[in-house]
């Protein structure tokens, strides 16, 4: 098999056996990036010199130390979403306002990956400040879907999904506020996991909506996803919202059968609006899950339809607060020819932010403003309680829920850009999981008649990522979807 399409696990074996050096693998990866990025626009920034220098260091380390002691990500070239602060490497969040920003430190998740031996090749495209479901709001232009270059890869971790799917990053991290790991994973046929809120540190990750954002892995298969989560999970004293609970051994959760596992099918997720080809794939997947030993029963999540409106109050409200810091004073873009301090703030923001970001900041300012706070923000927080209770009640009866990930397959570039509400509905099956703070995972479960990928979402209770890995791995072993790669 082509080098670029190997899994993390397979590369590790090759490096350990000294069949390939870190420099060889990095050089090959950089060459492939150079060839494919012109079509995909998956990378915003590349750092080839740094990558090769790091590969050389790692090869020197390997020459002096036993290969058996290597961490599982040793020598693996990887691009990272441009929302993670990377020391000395430009981090833009796909915005003009951070267009030249070079962070002075690494985010905790990045530092953990570096400690585990990855080689950073560059920073991956995304929706500006992670606001979008198609990767079309990026200041650096849209990223393309490797399965069809006229279509979106999903958002906001679209660059990350496109890179893993096309083999220009062996695995990566995304962030997920309303579905931004799972929806692009679904649209590009990779595995993506949003862990329980608090499982992974958000320190050094540019904030969008702080009570919803969570960092998670995006990979070619379930085992790679488990390896990545194993590396980044855990308490971080630098992030007071990270949770101080032991990290289980996720690889031990990978089992080939589903005996004794109870799965719930939320009836509300299979209602009007779901593409019939997606529904058909999901039904076939359910059949496979039953054959593997799982029992399947319908469950109810009665407040499902209130998720999108709740999210579009809470997320913009938090965003308007988080993005107030981009005032042109301490870092980022500063407007020229300024006379007063107010001018400085207003012109820097007005010239620096793109239209989707402005729309959400204004929506946030409006719902938090005097006279509207109770009617919108407080109301949405109360509905959030109902949505969370729905999930916790359903998960008392079953181990995990099975749902579609996205209501449609990858859509065409420009198809939804003029209608924000239509775009917002792209995350209809993923948003509620963020509101409830639960772990959710997307695994490939088929292709439609146009050869576009279809993903299945699995949802579990708080900190029950192991159950997701168990179900997803058993399913993956019984199917072939994860082995297909786009031709480029």
């Amino acid at each position: 098999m082509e080098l670029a399409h190997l899994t993390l696990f397979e590369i590790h074996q090759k490096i350990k056996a000294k069949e390939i050096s870190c420099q060889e693998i990095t050089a090959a990866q950089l060459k492939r990036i150079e060839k494919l990025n012109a079509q995909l626009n998956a990378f915003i920034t590349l750092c080839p010199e740094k990558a090769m220098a790091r590969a050389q260091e790692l090869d020197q380390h390997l020459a002096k130390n036993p290969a058996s002691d290597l961490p599982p990500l040793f020598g693996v070239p990887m691009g990272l979403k441009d929302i993670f602060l990377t020391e000395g490497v430009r981090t833009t969040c796909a915005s003009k306002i951070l267009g030249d920003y070079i962070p002075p430190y690494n985010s905790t998740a990045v530092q953990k990956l570096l400690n585990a031996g990855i080689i950073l090749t560059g920073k991956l495209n995304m929706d500006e400040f992670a606001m979008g479901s198609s990767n079309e709001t990026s200041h650096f232009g849209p990223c393309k879907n490797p399965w069809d270059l006229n279509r979106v890869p999903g958002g906001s971790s679209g660059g990350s999904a496109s890179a893993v799917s096309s083999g220009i990053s062996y695995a990566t991290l995304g962030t997920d506020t309303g579905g931004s790991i799972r929806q692009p994973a679904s649209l590009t046929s990779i595995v993506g996991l949003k862990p329980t809120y608090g499982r992974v540190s958000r320190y050094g990750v540019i904030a969008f909506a702080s009570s919803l954002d969570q960092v998670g892995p995006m990979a070619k298969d379930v085992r790679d996803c488990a390896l990545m989560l194993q590396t980044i999970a855990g308490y971080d004293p630098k992030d007071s919202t990270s949770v101080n609970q032991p990290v289980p051994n996720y690889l031990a959760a990978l089992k080939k059968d589903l005996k004794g596992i109870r799965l719930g099918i939320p009836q509300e997720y299979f209602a009007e609006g779901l593409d019939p080809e997606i529904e058909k794939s999901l039904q076939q997947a359910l059949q496979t899950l039953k054959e593997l030993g799982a029992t399947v029963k319908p469950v109810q999540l009665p407040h499902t339809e209130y998720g999108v409106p709740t999210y579009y109050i809470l997320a913009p409200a938090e965003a308007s607060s988080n993005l107030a810091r981009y005032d042109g004073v301490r870092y980022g873009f500063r407007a020229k020819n300024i006379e007063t301090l107010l001018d400085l703030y207003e012109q820097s923001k007005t010239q620096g932010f793109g239209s989707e970001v402005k729309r959400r900041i204004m929506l946030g300012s409006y719902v938090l403003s005097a006279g509207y706070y109770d009617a919108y923000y407080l109301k949405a927080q109360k509905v959030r309680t109902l949505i969370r209770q729905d999930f916790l009640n359903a998960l008392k009866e079953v181990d995990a829920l099975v749902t579609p990930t996205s209501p449609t397959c990858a859509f065409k570039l420009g198809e939804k850009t003029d209608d924000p509400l239509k775009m917002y509905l792209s995350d209809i099956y993923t948003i509620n999981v963020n509101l409830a703070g639960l772990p959710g995972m997307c695994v490939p479960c088929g292709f439609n008649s146009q050869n576009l990928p279809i993903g299945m979402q699995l949802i579990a209770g708080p900190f029950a990522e192991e159950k997701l890995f168990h179900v997803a791995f058993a399913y993956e072993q019984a199917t072939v979807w994860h082995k297909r790669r786009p031709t480029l």
Partner: protein
Amino acid sequence: MISRDDVIKAAKLAKLRLKEEEIQVYTEQLQNILHHVEKLNSLNTSNIEPTSHAVDTQAIFREDIAHPCDILEKVFAVAPDTEDRFFRVPKVI
């Protein structure tokens, strides 16, 4: 329902300046979004506690101990305008 004046006010609060045509477009778009949000009013939430966070959290306390900070130079190096160890802005008084 959100009006043109509300959009102008929200932009002012957010310190954004909008062109005339933008005010029109945003008013229409925000009206559509908020119309969708109106759906929440059909739920009776009078006895429901609000959730501000998805996991149970408590205030985190730690000892107030100063730690050395060795990145100051790098912080100032990426600032748009500095003088010594200060960020320079237009005169305010």
